[in-house]
């Protein structure tokens, strides 16, 4: 990174859920990045990415929402931006790849956005915060910023689908990614082996078929518990909701189910960097992380 004294600026796309149910993800992203001398600047006039990439080749309409965001980044004279939400990252990046490959689709979208003065030409890069931390900040520099090492904390890193699939958006191995484990090590914690780390949580079935999510949560969190994890970290607010909120359903399904807290990786950073408690927002969690963190001496017992 250039210039240790002057903070780097990084354009930031939070996405809808980080401004609602996952405010803990938003505040911990901004606070922890400030500790790394990166000034996260929320982009102007961002809109919902659409949450899912339209897979049908003739579905151009659903690429308008993500591409509009890419255009907003270009309007701000930036050539790249970062999001910490795995679902936003996946949708924005896949739309970007698609319009870069298909000139006709891009032309249709630009025509649709005729009120905008400039045209999108595929000239903005989408970054996920984890790849930014690994490739731009570097885990060595990150480790040097740790004030409160997560000593003894056993962490299961859950990637779900969207960081590793499809391969054109993945910034790590599809079957055995390790970027979050390396982050946990840099923060002084202990990553545990986790067989279910890239197995889907059931995603939006939480709306119409929550019983599927209960079963998936039982399997995924059960696998983390078998490895004696203290908690599970995620990068997706939908995974977080399912694996945290649906634990009550998982317990009904399987009385042996063991509750485990689910945190965003940015909360672990904020914790290790000694950020204020307001950057953690543990009040938004269904399974309270405080007892586990207190047992490891990482939070006051109050």
């Amino acid at each position: 990174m250039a210039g240790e004294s002057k903070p780097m600026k990084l354009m930031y796309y939070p996405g809808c859920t980080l401004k609602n149910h996952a405010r803990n993800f938003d505040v911990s992203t901004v606070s922890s990045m400030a500790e790394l001398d990166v000034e996260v600047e929320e982009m102007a006039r961002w809109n919902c990415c659409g949450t899912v990439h339209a897979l049908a080749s003739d579905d151009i309409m659903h690429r308008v929402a993500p591409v509009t965001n890419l255009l907003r980044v270009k309007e701000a004279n930036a050539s790249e931006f970062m999001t910490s939400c795995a679902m936003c990252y996946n949708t924005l990046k896949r739309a970007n790849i698609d319009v870069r490959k298909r000139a006709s689709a891009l032309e249709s979208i630009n025509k649709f956005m005729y009120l905008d003065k400039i045209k999108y030409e595929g000239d903005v890069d989408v970054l996920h915060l984890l790849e930014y931390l690994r490739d731009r900040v570097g885990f060595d520099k990150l480790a040097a910023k740790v004030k409160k090492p997560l000593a003894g904390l056993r962490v299961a890193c859950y990637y779900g689908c969207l960081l590793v699939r499809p391969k054109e958006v993945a910034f790590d191995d599809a079957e055995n990614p390790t970027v979050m484990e390396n982050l946990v090590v840099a923060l002084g914690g202990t990553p545990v082996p986790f067989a279910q780390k890239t197995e889907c949580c059931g995603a939006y079935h939480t709306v119409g078929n929550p019983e599927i999510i209960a079963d998936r949560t039982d399997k995924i969190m059960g696998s983390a518990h078998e490895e004696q994890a203290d908690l599970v970290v995620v990068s997706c607010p939908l995974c977080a909701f399912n694996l945290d909120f649906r634990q009550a359903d998982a317990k009904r399904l399987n009385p042996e189910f063991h509750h485990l807290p689910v945190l965003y990786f940015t909360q672990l950073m904020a914790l290790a960097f000694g950020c204020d408690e307001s950057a953690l927002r543990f009040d938004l969690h269904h399974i309270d992380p405080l007892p586990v963190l207190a047992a490891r001496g990482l939070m006051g017992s109050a």
Partner: protein
Amino acid sequence: MAITTSSTTMRNSPLQKRGPFVAKVEKIAGQKLLACYQCGKCSAGCPMAAYMDVLPNQIIRLAQLGMQEQLMASGAIWTCVSCMTCNSRCPKGIRIAEIIEALRGMAIGLRRRDDHLDIRDISLETRGVLPPIALISAMRKQTS
């Protein structure tokens, strides 16, 4: 070709009926259905397979054979959440999730039945609990 005689699959879907359907699925999905040789790897790794009435490799087989009605009536096309595990593991590089999305689109587009998800079935209390990311993705995938 003597396609009207012995083969049961051909009897289910005569060529003239199968042709346009197969062509449409292939066009929307941007995939070649006949590239699939039924190894079953997609179904083996599918995290949703346990909740499906027809497995992913069987969906491809039914699509190859032009069995439109069976596919449109299946619950499995709605159970797939496009996690892309099948796509990333298919030895033939077939994007199965794209094929299933094409089938969902056809089911909604054909108006053979209503949207798969009716938000009125979700209680106000539940709607208040669900994050936007869940509601938007569910509506995007399961309604027209």
